[in-house]
């Protein structure tokens, strides 16, 4: 089971530019990120019935971080703060 943050919904465009996360071309304010990254990811659209998830801990090469699009049906719960 993975714990990830939903950053984009179906139909939205996701992109990384020099470590900044862009949703539909606009930079997303992410105060929860403690360590900046330098990731670059070309724009991609979230498919129907899917969401885009990314973890908060990004102080690693992008290839080593588990993130991406996943079907909504795979979500089993939310964390209790």
């Amino acid at each position: 089971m993975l714990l990830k943050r939903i950053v984009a919904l179906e139909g939205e465009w996701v992109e990384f530019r020099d470590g900044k996360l862009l949703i539909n071309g606009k930079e997303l304010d992410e105060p929860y990120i403690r360590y900046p990254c330098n990731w670059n990811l070309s724009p991609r659209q979230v498919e129907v019935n899917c969401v885009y998830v990314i973890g908060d801990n990004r102080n690693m090469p992008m290839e080593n971080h588990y993130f991406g699009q996943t079907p909504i049906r795979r979500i089993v719960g939310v964390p209790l703060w």
Partner: protein
Amino acid sequence: MVKVRSLLIALMVMGIGIWAFIHFSQSEEKKVRKQFDLLSEWASKAQSETPLVMAQKIKKIGTLFAENCVLNVPLYSTSGSFTREEIISYAARGRLLFSELYLKFYDLTVTFPEEGTAKVSSTARLTGKLNIGENVDEIHELECVLKKIEKRWFFSHLEVVEVLKK
């Protein structure tokens, strides 16, 4: 009085039937889960593993798989039907790349779609250290099918499900 007795006997028989069904299906589930425990134990490798232990474990891994097993692991460009000997060979070569290796299965869900067939969904976590010093920590979702042959369960299909698509 006779009717009441017949009814009681019928209820008892039904009860025993239900108990037997639950008991035996649970024990089959335990047997299936055990195969995952064994795969985890035999695939894992401690830093201090001797060549003798390594040979024993590799041989044992082979006993968990059916004569022919379908593997679909796109991540490692592995797809197709493999014989038990081929799987042993892959396992041996794969383990050699690691100085330390641990395989654990989590969240196992076991269903029996038909008699003699078990379908298992699980999360596999592979951690360890490559011989070149690089640490490995991979998590994958697995869909497996096990077949019961002569009272024993064997892996006959193993597929890595792509959960997150970048």
